[in-house]
């Protein structure tokens, strides 16, 4: 019981939980850095999706990277882990909707995921990556019982 976390009746080994936490949390921490340093360029990247009204464009560019950083760090360090997994899941769903919407409209834009300057172009591979991350976040969100911090 001390080296495993029950997940809805299934046992998630500690080592696996730790790997998922580092993968998901680390991805979000890494993704946040460039956006925090260059909010103007990130706003430009968000604008290219043409989904947000003017009143929300800059507030989103300012807050979203910090939410990524805080949620990613919380996920890695193990505090407020369910909340971190919840927000990461919410963000991933929003990202997937934005990517799917851009793809359906035929927009040839940079995703703005990790680097604001020369990012990965929006494509199906990004959707698959986000689905994989979402699966990890949902597993951690659903995890109950034993809780450990680093």
């Amino acid at each position, binding site marked *: 019981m001390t080296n495993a976390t029950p997940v809805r009746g299934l046992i998630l080994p500690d080592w696996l939980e730790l790997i998922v936490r580092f993968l998901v949390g680390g991805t979000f921490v890494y993704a946040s850095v460039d956006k*925090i340093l260059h*909010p*103007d*360029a990130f*706003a*430009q990247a968000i*604008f290219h999706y043409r989904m947000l009204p*003017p*009143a929300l*464009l*800059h*507030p989103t*560019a*300012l*807050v979203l*990277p*910090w*939410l990524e*950083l*805080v*949620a990613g760090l*919380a996920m890695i360090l193990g*505090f*407020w*882990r*369910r*909340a*971190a997994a*919840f*927000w990461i899941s919410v963000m991933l769903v929003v990202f997937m909707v934005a990517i799917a919407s851009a793809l359906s409209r035929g927009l040839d834009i940079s995703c703005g995921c990790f680097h604001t*300057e020369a990012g990965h172009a929006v494509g199906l591979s990004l959707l698959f990556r986000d689905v994989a991350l979402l699966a990890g976040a949902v597993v951690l969100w659903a995890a109950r019982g034993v*809780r450990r*911090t680093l």
Partner: protein
Amino acid sequence: MVNSRKVKLLSAGPLWREAPLLLGLALVLAAGAWFARTPRLPLIADMSLYEMDLAAPVLEPAAALAAFRDNTHIFVDTRAVDDGRRIPGAMVLRPDSFDEDFREIFDFLVPEDPLILYGDGNLLLTSNVAQQLEARGFTELSLLRGDLDAWAAAGGDLSTEGGAP
């Protein structure tokens, strides 16, 4: 007592309590970073600037003035016509003689320098100069909204001598 409270706050709790706390922490950090950063990104976006697809973000005169007073940025005059006025210390890079002007100031700039470009109010012309600087490796570029009259109206100083160098 304090430690046990801290441990209780950081330890597992109901999602309805943890999730707003985490969002609140992100909001506080974002607000702090926004406040500490100069120049600040305006909270309401001017979409016409995004539609123009400019090569660099646009700064309001007040934000540029703050950068000028903090001495954090180098100003670059991109006006094609020189009327003798200039933001003190500004370097000159005219669109029609970019290469020649760039050679003159090359020794005084490094690509990491944060630059604020200003012109006669036409952002697209100023953006063209920014694009050429970007091609030479400059990444920290901003465009001043408005002309020198807007700068002066915001309280900015103007010199009537030649630019630097």
